[in-house]
């Protein structure tokens, strides 16, 4: 089992550009989560999907951030018009049972907005 796979591992963008981050969950897991980690805020929940359906996006900034799960093998987090304050490590996790099940994390995508 390859674990949760996130790409790219590092991304540098200029202010105002778009960034798309990818996550491939563990095969057979029904839930996918996105978190953002910064020194100041720690680990922040962004959104999660179960069986590809969006369940809770209460942590997503209302503007510029969107997430999709078009099929059971991948999810994307898109940030439009990136700003320096979007710089963070974005972590994806999957779970076999859903919202409160054991989480398995990918290695994260470090986004730097210049």
């Amino acid at each position, binding site marked *: 089992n390859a674990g949760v796979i996130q790409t790219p591992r590092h991304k540098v963008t200029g202010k105002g550009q778009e960034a798309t981050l990818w996550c491939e969950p563990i095969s057979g897991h029904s839930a996918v989560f996105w*978190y953002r980690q910064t020194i100041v805020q*720690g*680990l922040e*929940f962004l959104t*999660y999907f179960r069986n590809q359906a969006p369940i*809770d996006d209460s942590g997503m900034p209302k503007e510029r951030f969107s997430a999709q799960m078009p099929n059971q093998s991948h999810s994307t987090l898109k940030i439009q018009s990136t700003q320096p304050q979007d710089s963070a*490590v974005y*972590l994806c*996790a999957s779970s076999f049972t859903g*919202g*409160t099940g*054991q*989480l*398995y*994390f990918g*290695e*994260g995508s*470090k986004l730097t907005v210049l």
Partner: protein
Amino acid sequence: GDKVKQSPSALSLQEGTNSALRCNFSIAATTVQWFLQNPRGSLMNLFYLVPGTKENGRLKSAFDSKESYSTLHIRDAQLEDSGTYFCAADDTNAYKVIFGKGTHLHVLP
């Protein structure tokens, strides 16, 4: 306030010694998870607990749902135990997992 509070926030200990990390909850949690984030940034599962205890090598964790806390005991600390330890509890009202802010552990040679 924080729904999941970890203590201490940082800790240094000598190789070979023992320590305990604690996590207190202000939510009605039914499960607790402990993770170690290594210097590369990877979050590794350590334990997934219902009320009770689990042990894995030099690590032992306990979860008391009635008193709303969990502990992680590290025995005979090694250099590779260094990193940030996170606990996370399920908020059954919100049906999601809430993370603490972590304990930064530095094991000294």
